[in-house]
């Protein structure tokens, strides 16, 4: 080989603590190195041009750049060598900035280390092989999991862009959490009024197929060619026939069915439509509370249904959709706050969650928007809001901030005053997080115009005083004193967690999730919508706590990603993937068992079972390579021999 080594000074970033000239001198003595240079800034245009020239002039067939992290400029330099006619994989980087010059104080040691990192890079490069990508077709259709506001936005944007959309929603209606909210901050508009039209658009859009009351059963395939099995749960109502007239619900005798849509603040009937603006506006029978389904006698709804839509014998069914991309927009749930025994652990009727309070405030809620205490139906005078219940609490393993509680708490305090002008609200908070547009102004208004008392401090305990009120033991850290408030109603701003089933879905989609169960984006800053599985994108709170505008924005961003991907007719794979040396393979299948992507399959080759890599599915982790005992499975660009060359350069 003829290798060129470029030792970048990076101004004084590297040259300040590394003797670059000496490194270049040493590098000249490495095998196959025929040329070295010391550009001031290799990544700058003159640096790149000089590199291209050197490749031509010295007939280089491999290049090592010793500079910053490959995570920074590997892609840049690969393009550079490619412009000069080399294969982009005949290139290696030695990170002598982040890993040397910026972290080591002594120039001698730094110089020695830098030279050694260059030696490792040369050793690896001498084992590199040119790699080329493969192309394949794309199915231009997207599946969106979750019909909350983020999923709705993605669906509408994709559909408007001409991409057919399969929207899968687990509940019987789309709308998600936003549909349950009374008002939205900071404008205090009616939530249903702004979301409703979008929901209707989903129902009417010719490019959108909606599967409500459905779950994702299985996902196979890869970017451009996913195959998704959807389980349509039994509704016991034939939606083809159901007109949403509501007669069934009126007649249903099982009136004490817990009302999940109202966060169990009230009851509903066993057959019901979750709320008046539901999309699709279709009835569903709650099998656990339906007398016909539990006891085998009733049949009232079937008798009264004008279209004969009731079908007690209905079973779950499976449909399969072929799509090219998947957007996960599965949202969140509130954490189980009853772990807080010091707040009563759920035993006190007037200590409720913020989402329950939202339903109590809502005119479509169980009280018709009349704000009352659940215990006795009286109007509360003193309402205490406690923030960060299940957020920023390491002691229960939830160190993260739920991001939007500060704002909705302010909104709820404002609404409390509007509903009950005589009432007084108190908010226990740690920090007010109001960085959005008009957000801080809104919290100020709550204090200044609505007289909400903000008390900086956490609440240690809440207990009934035996006389009908609740003692809230808090502290005012600004005052430097413990404080106690007797409250009529306590609203807990309960922290959020990824929606139930998120982990199972992550495993089906082969994407990762963080400690709190939220899906992992590909890069926390630069790829917030992508995942590490090509073709799977994220929208909304399933990726991390965010408020409605951010969810909507991410919904649109995910749609843009889908459309950008679909703008091409063919896709290229990353050639840094595994391959199998068929002669070495004994067909033991260990690689197949542990491949996280299902990217290896058995293949019969001349009567012998062999492993074969599905090149479009392989993501290049190399687990198969370290699993294969005979070294038959090798990861291109990180083969055993390439890593061994690096090890051997260091240890001999």
């Amino acid at each position, binding site marked *: 080989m003829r290798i060129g080594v470029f030792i970048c000074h990076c101004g004084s970033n590297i040259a300040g603590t590394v003797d670059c000239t000496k490194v270049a001198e040493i590098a000249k003595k490495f095998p196959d190195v025929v040329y070295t240079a010391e550009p001031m800034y290799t990544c700058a245009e003159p640096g790149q041009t000089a590199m291209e020239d050197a490749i031509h002039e010295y007939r280089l067939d491999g290049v090592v750049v010793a500079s910053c992290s490959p995570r920074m400029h590997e892609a840049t330099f690969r393009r550079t060598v490619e412009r000069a006619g080399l294969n982009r994989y005949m290139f290696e980087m030695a990170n002598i900035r982040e890993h040397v010059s910026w972290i080591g104080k002594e120039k001698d040691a730094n110089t020695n280390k830098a030279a050694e990192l260059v030696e490792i890079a040369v050793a690896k490069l001498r084992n590199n092989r040119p790699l080329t990508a493969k192309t394949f077709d794309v199915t231009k259709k997207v599946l969106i999991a979750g019909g909350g506001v983020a999923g709705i936005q993605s669906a509408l944007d994709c559909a408007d862009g001409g991409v057919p959309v399969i929207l899968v929603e687990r509940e019987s209606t789309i709308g998600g959490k936003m549909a349950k909210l009374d008002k939205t901050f900071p404008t205090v508009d009616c939530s249903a009024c702004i979301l409703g039209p979008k929901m209707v658009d989903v129902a009417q859009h010719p490019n959108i197929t909606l599967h409500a009351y459905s779950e994702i059963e299985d996902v196979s395939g890869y970017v451009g060619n996913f195959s998704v099995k959807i389980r349509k749960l039994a509704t016991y109502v034939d939606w083809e026939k159901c007109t949403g007239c509501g007669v069934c619900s009126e007649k249903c005798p099982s009136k004490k069915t817990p009302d999940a849509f109202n966060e169990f603040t009230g009851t509903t009937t066993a057959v019901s439509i979750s709320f008046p603006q539901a999309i699709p506006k279709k009835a569903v029978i709650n099998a656990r509370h339906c007398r016909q389904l539990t006891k085998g006698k009733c049949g009232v709804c079937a008798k009264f249904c004008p279209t004969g839509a009731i079908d007690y014998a209905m079973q779950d069914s499976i449909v399969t959709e072929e799509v090219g991309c998947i957007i996960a927009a599965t949202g969140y749930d509130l954490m189980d706050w009853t772990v807080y025994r010091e707040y009563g652990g759920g035993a006190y009727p007037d200590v409720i969650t913020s989402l329950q309070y939202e339903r109590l405030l809502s005119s479509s809620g169980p009280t018709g928007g009349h704000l009352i205490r659940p215990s006795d139906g009286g109007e509360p005078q003193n309402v205490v809001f406690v923030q960060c219940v299940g957020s*920023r*609490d390491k002691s229960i393993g939830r160190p993260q901030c739920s991001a939007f509680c500060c704002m909705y708490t302010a909104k709820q305090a404002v609404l409390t005053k509007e509903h009950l002008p005589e009432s007084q609200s108190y908010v226990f908070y740690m920090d007010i997080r109001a960085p959005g547009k008009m957000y801080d102004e809104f919290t100020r208004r709550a204090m200044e115009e609505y007289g909400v008392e903000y008390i900086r*401090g*956490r609440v*240690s305990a809440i207990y009934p005083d035996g006389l009908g009120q609740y003692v809230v033991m808090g502290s*005012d*850290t600004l005052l430097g*004193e*413990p404080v106690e408030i007797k409250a009529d109603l306590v609203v807990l701003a309960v922290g959020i967690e990824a929606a139930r089933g998120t982990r199972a879905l992550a495993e089906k989609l082969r994407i990762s999730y963080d400690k709190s169960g939220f899906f992992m984006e590909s890069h926390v800053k630069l790829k917030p919508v992508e995942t590490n599985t090509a073709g799977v994108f994220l929208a909304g709170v399933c990726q991390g706590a965010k408020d409605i505008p951010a969810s909507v924005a991410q919904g649109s961003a995910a749609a843009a990603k889908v459309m950008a991907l679909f703008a091409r007719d063919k896709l290229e794979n990353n050639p840094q993937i595994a391959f199998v040396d068929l002669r070495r393979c004994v067909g033991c299948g260990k690689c197949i068992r542990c491949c996280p992507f299902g990217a290896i399959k058995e293949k019969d080759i001349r009567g012998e079972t062999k492993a074969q890599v599905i090149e479009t599915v392989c993501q290049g982790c190399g687990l198969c390579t370290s699993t294969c005992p005979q070294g038959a499975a090798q990861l291109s660009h990180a083969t055993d021999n390439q890593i061994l060359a690096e090890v051997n350069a260091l240890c001999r």
Partner: protein
Amino acid sequence: MSNITDIRLKRDAGFIAEVEAASGQKLSTCYQCGNCTAGCPAGFAYDKQVNRIMRGAQLGLKDDVLNSRAIWMCLSCFTCSLRCPNNIDVAAIMETLRHMARKKNMVSVRKVEKFWFSFLNTVRAFGRSWEIGTMALYMLRSLRVFTDIDLAPEALKKQKLPFKPYVVPNGGAGAVGRIFKRYRERADREGVRP
């Protein structure tokens, strides 16, 4: 002279390290939510609330913290530790500070310490505690005559207070006494206040 706290000058890094080592807690994990203060039953008797003690320790304001009354009034009920969202054993820090203050003879609430010694003296002498002895010693030490004089008649009537101490037999009292003796000798050796 300004009486504004110069937190840069007052910061005692050695003190922070000492508190962390002795208590096994990491002070920087405290984010000042005030939950300790909110739940502290003795807070009303403090000069500085628990969260301010925590803040002082965090900043390394050694004298401020060790001179506080609060560390002497802490009841060691562990409510703060139990409810701390950052899993800090606040009670352990309070106890650590109390030990440090005692060893350095920075006892801002002498009567509490006097009570403890009165109690421990009966233990040292007899192997077990003796209420009347404790109270008598305490009165001598604190020059407070019969703090609980209102209780005495009732207590005596109900025979709640034995007039004679119980001495642990078979050399037991002596063994306990030797524990105290060795403790005192070691403290002397190590140059700390016993």
